[in-house]
């Protein structure tokens, strides 16, 4: 559900009525309305507008109407940079919703931070976003949390000793660190730990080394292709273990590539309950405003982001970004949105609850 390589070139134009007028409280949004992410961008925009409508119907913010100034980024990082510069320097907005896709988001992070503009993300998962700075928040769980999720899964399945392997890049190493800390703190033991390179076609040496440790379970934090190759070659080499994986490999493509070798894999993925009153009311509102349309990918996160922003603007003592930042930290504490608890930690990250997936009879299903 992440790693959407959401991207951009900015042609600057205003979508909604645009100009900031007195009596409005406006925030900006860098959204992929053209380019390859436009197919998602439209859904994000609709979800944000739904939240804005509800805010205005409930009396706006401090009696002013709430407005989102949308700026297209053409789905590229270059466009994202131009778009955010325009929102900061011309529209002079104190708070901006950042673009989708971690790479685009990371491109605008330093600009927001330098200008002390509050920047929010609704669908960017890269762990490095946590280090963006104190003005950056996201309502979407960081990839790093998966490390915790997998550690909990391992414990709950009763494995005390595991072999750990992970893809050797920033993402994999970061994830593995979190897993290790969590797992060993809970009394688990990592028998062997080995990184594997991204994109290789032969992991037999790695598998052989895993095998020489005779593990019962192997935690494999990797992507789809690498995961499939490892599963397949391990099967050929007669390595029979319980594979535990993260959400980055949760894909039908894994089954396509690895076939029956993928059978029985168990993994985690970030999820939220669709049974909460918050979710149900969102769903009802969505169906009322956009009849016949399915709720978009990450729509719930975008909706939560706008709702939370409105609360912060309401309670902020002024419209300056520093005050908004303070207020955002305060109002988020214990805030339950459609996607669960949105309390920001010191990095501006939220917690997440994790579901468990498994592969059974060649299909991905929930593990129970």
């Amino acid at each position, binding site marked *: 559900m992440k790693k959407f390589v959401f991207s951009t070139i900015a042609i600057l134009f205003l979508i909604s009525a645009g100009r900031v007028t007195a009596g409005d409280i406006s925030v900006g949004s860098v959204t992929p309305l053209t380019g390859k992410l436009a197919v998602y961008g439209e859904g994000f925009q609709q979800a944000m507008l739904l939240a804005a409508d509800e805010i205005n119907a409930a009396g706006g913010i401090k009696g002013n109407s709430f407005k989102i100034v949308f700026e297209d980024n053409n789905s590229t990082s270059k466009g994202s940079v131009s778009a955010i510069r325009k929102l900061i320097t011309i529209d002079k907005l104190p708070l901006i919703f950042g673009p989708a896709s971690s790479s685009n988001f990371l491109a605008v992070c330093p600009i927001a931070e330098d200008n002390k503009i509050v920047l929010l993300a609704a669908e960017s998962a890269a762990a490095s976003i946590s280090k963006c700075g104190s003005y950056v928040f996201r309502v979407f769980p960081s990839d790093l949390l998966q490390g915790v999720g997998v550690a909990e899964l391992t414990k709950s399945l009763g494995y005390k000793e595991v072999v750990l392997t992970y893809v*050797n890049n920033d993402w994999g190493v970061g994830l593995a660190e979190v897993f290790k800390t969590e797992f060993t703190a809970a009394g688990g033991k990592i028998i062997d730990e080995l990184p594997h390179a991204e994109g290789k*076609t032969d992991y037999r040496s790695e598998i*052989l080394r895993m095998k020489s440790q005779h593990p019962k379970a192997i935690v494999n934090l990797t992507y789809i292709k690498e995961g499939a190759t490892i599963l397949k070659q391990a099967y*050929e*080499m007669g390595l029979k273990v319980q594979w535990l994986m993260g959400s980055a490999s949760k894909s039908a493509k894994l089954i396509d590539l690895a*076939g029956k070798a993928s059978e029985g894999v168990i993994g985690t993925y970030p999820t939220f309950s669709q049974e909460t009153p918050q979710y149900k009311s969102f769903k009802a509102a969505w169906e009322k405003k956009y009849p016949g349309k399915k709720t978009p990918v990450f729509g719930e996160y975008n909706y939560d982001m706008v709702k939370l922003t409105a609360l912060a603007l309401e309670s902020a003592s002024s419209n300056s970004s520093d005050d908004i930042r303070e207020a955002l930290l305060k109002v988020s504490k214990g805030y339950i949105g459609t996607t669960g608890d949105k309390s920001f930690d010191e990095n501006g990250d939220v917690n997440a609850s994790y579901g468990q997936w498994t592969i059974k009879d060649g299909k991905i299903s929930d593990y129970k």
Partner: protein
Amino acid sequence: MTGYYTQLIVNGIVAGSIYALFAVGLAMVYGVFKFINFSHGELITWGGYLALMFSSPPIALPLYLAVIPALLLTVGIGLAQDCFVFRPLRQSNPISILIASIGLSYLLRNGIRLFWGSDLQSFNLPLSTGIIFGDIYITRIQILMVLSALLFFSILYFLLTRTLLGKSLRAVSDNIELSSIMGINMRKVTWTIWILASVFAGSGGILLALDTSLDPMMGMNSLIKAFAAVLLGGAGNIWGALVGGLFIGITENLSVAFISPDYKDFISYGLIFILLLIKPRGFFGIAGGVR
């Protein structure tokens, strides 16, 4: 634990035979034409992808039949490389040929991206557990890889030592001008070299793809190993390429016992570096010519 080391050596031999198959074409081309063909890696990739094309719908030949048109087309690409790029440049300076081969490599690789996309593909062979000998696992494909390398090198040995064509090939690589003065049919020799190089690379590519999977970079990645094998064996020396390939395959796999597998290239290339410091001309010396 001995089982572990034996398994590592077996894996090394399997990897090494494939490296050797790739290296021999490179060595032959170098031996005769005196340039390093960077687009050799693409013959590997094209071999694999063409076999995939002929074995999947709409053509859907059984794999053993699909190999034939795939190799024929790979040979076609090999000959076309010579005909359209290397032959016109034969008299120009070595740098132009080198750069042309790099350019050709990009062209062919991106051709693959254009036709098949960058995504990983595989033959989707039914998955099966390897054959077990004691503690050692080996898959049928891996056995096939070693056997093919043995077969190909035997044929090559026979060709070079027992046939007139092979002898003229060796003569040409010793001295290209003198050989043509002596009436050796240059065209025939040139064709033979490109056909052999393409068949070796293409078959290696198909085997590698069957063993693992296909991606447009597979040839380029293997080419680096093949370069090292050629260098180690002594440029232009076919048997050197075989020994070099096996040496790299075995050292890189054995190194896994000591360092993280992700860094196994570090050990093998480190060793090559040291070996070349001691024996700068490779195991068999850069004598020039195809031996």
